[in-house]
Structure formats: structure tokens, C-alpha cells
């Protein structure tokens, strides 16, 4: 069945489920395609049962009744599938895990790239030629003290992102069913990455204040731009993870 009143009922139902699914477009399309396939199987099952029933001969010959019967089959299949809100809510924990995993993986992939840009900027600015560690650079206080919070933020972001990736993959078969955990740790990882970017900006500002001529402009600008973009995206992703976590309050 692809059209007719029955098909329209199925599509309306799927649209209602889709509107409540907090998923990226591609994932939502995959879910709806699978639900559609199952719904059409259910419609077929109701139609087969009807046609093999005692009134089959009468109904098969009534064209006007056929449309009504097809709509009734679709309505029965939809009732069997369940309330759209119930179905969308049942997908919620899985979608939350997927969201947390995407955020964590993105942070783990982009983190080294941003770090590489900052390392390039530092090397090009001859910061590496200094013999003393950053917190002992003359005239660089208090900015260079940001090295400590920077290291802490990076450590928090990396470890929580690694935990999130581990907890949202195959390991879910052994872990207790706690769907709110992964969005929470992904949010911490996102805020950790954003915190690292803030610390890097403070270090950059400190260096600009103390010895502006020593900075290699292009690599430093590229690193700052990358950090600014990540700061915005990581902060936004972390906030969205917290929203998802809050939405799972009943689970």
C-alpha cells in the first residue's frame, strides 16, 4: 500500500512521530523508513486477515467499501503501533546516546587539530625557544598561570569525551541502563573544551600585552579563529546535551 486513504493515514502518523523525534535529519529518515516498513507490514496483515475472514467475498466486490476497509486496516495498524508520543519517547534514550557520542567524537577529533594550530603558533612565535616553563616567563604573569587551568580543562574534556565514547558503544550491553549519564558527560566534555579555549585566549591576550611583536600573526590568528569556532560550537553542543539530559528526566 502506497496511496489511498490508508496510505495517507500511515504518512500522517509517521509525520507526527517524526515531528517529535529529536534526531538529525538522516537518522530521523532512517527511523521513519523502518517504522513505515513495519506499519505497511501490519496493514498487510490486517488486510490478509480481513480478506480471509467470513465476509471476504462481499467486501472484495465492493469498490466503495474497499477504500473504507483499507483505511480501517491502516487505522488498526496504527493503533497496534502505539501513540506517536509513546513511540518517539521510546526512541529518546537511544537518540540521546547517539547525540552524546557524536559530540564526544567531534571533540576528540577536533581537539588535536586546534592544539596543533596553537602549537604551530607558539613555535612560529619562538615561544619554544624559551628555556623556562610558561609560568616562569618574565613579565607574562598572570596570563601564563592559565597554563594550569588550561591543562585541567583539556584533561577534563579528553577523559570525559573518552568515557562518553566508551559508554555509548558496545559497552552499553554491560552498563546499567542510565540514559541521562552520557549526555551529562558529553556536556562536561564540551564545557571542558570551551574552558580550554578560554584559557588559550587568556594566554594569547597575556602574550599580546607583554610582547606583541613576538607573536607570529598568521599562525596565531588561525589558532585563535579555530578556538573561537570551537568555543562557540562546543558550548552550544554542551548546552544541547544538557537540554537532552533534562528531557530524559523520566527515564
Amino acid at each position, binding site marked *: 500500500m502506497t496511496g489511498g486513504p490508508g496510505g495517507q493515514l500511515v504518512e500522517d502518523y509517521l509525520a507526527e*512521530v517524526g515531528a517529535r523525534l529529536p534526531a538529525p535529519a538522516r537518522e530521523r529518515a532512517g527511523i521513519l523508513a523502518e517504522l513505515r516498513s513495519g506499519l505497511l*507490514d501490519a496493514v498487510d496483515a490486517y488486510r490478509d486477515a480481513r480478506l480471509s475472514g467470513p465476509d471476504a467475498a462481499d467486501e472484495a466486490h465492493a469498490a466503495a467499501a474497499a477504500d473504507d476497509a483499507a483505511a480501517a486496516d491502516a487505522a488498526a495498524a496504527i493503533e497496534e503501533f502505539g501513540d506517536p508520543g509513546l513511540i518517539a519517547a521510546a526512541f529518546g534514550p537511544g537518540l540521546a546516546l547517539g547525540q552524546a557520542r557524536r559530540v564526544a567524537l567531534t571533540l576528540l577529533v577536533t581537539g588535536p587539530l586546534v592544539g596543533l594550530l596553537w602549537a604551530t603558533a607558539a613555535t612560529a612565535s619562538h615561544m619554544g625557544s624559551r628555556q623556562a616553563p610558561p609560568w616562569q616567563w618574565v613579565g607574562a604573569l598572570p596570563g601564563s598561570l592559565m597554563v594550569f587551568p588550561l591543562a585541567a580543562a583539556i584533561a577534563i574534556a579528553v577523559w570525559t569525551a573518552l568515557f562518553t565514547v566508551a559508554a555509548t558503544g558496545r559497552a552499553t550491553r554491560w552498563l546499567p541502563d542510565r540514559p541521562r549519564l552520557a549526555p551529562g558527560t558529553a556536556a562536561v566534555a564540551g564545557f571542558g573544551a570551551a574552558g580550554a579555549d578560554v584559557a588559550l585566549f587568556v594566554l594569547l591576550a597575556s602574550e599580546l600585552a607583554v610582547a606583541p611583536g613576538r607573536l607570529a600573526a598568521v599562525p596565531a590568528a588561525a589558532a585563535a579563529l579555530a578556538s573561537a569556532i570551537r568555543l562557540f560550537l562546543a558550548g552550544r553542543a554542551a548546552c544541547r546535551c544538557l537540554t537532552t539530559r533534562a528531557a530524559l528526566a523520566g527515564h
Partner: protein
Amino acid sequence: MRPEALKGHLDGMLLAALEPGPRHGYAIMEALRAGSSGQFDLPTGTIYPALRRLERAGLVAGTWSEVGGRRRRVYELTPAGRHMLDTERGSWRQFSAAVTAMLEPAPLPVTS
């Protein structure tokens, strides 16, 4: 039987429904109904999230294929899924034996 009664057992039953071979979502639901003589009558839509959860855990593998002129996502047990099913079966037998022992009325003591 109410859906809440199945909480905690649905995963094992889905794995068991896939034990004979690959099935698509609606066929799994029909297998659950037939296997339980209609006792397990969940909202059909709720087994799809459960199947995705099992897939994420690596216990089943899902692939799209064309069956009977319709695109369907077909699931099959992975080796890890078979192992998990064995484990679930063992746990259930222990649990049900213990509950049965508690719930069944004890035989009255014979008095002379």
C-alpha cells in the same frame, strides 16, 4: 499482560525471537505474539527502539534489504548476541525456579 511486566525481559525475548534466523521488525513482533500465545502484546512501535539499542550494543546486526518488494531492515543475532541470549536464559531459569519455589503452595505436612 501489561507492557510494564516485560520490563527487563524484552531484550532477552527479542534475542530469542531472532535465534531461528534473521527477521525484520514486524516479523519479530509476530514471533513474540505467537511464542507467547498472544500474552505479550506490546505497542509494536516500541520494539524498534529496543532493536536499535541491541544493535548499538553489538548484540544484533541490522541491514536494509528488499524483501517481498519492500525495503525492510532485517536483524540477525551476532555471536555476542548468542552469548548474551545463553546468559539471559541461564539467569531466567534460576530466577523463575526461585520465584516458583516461593509462590507455589507448599505441600501440607502429613499427620497421622
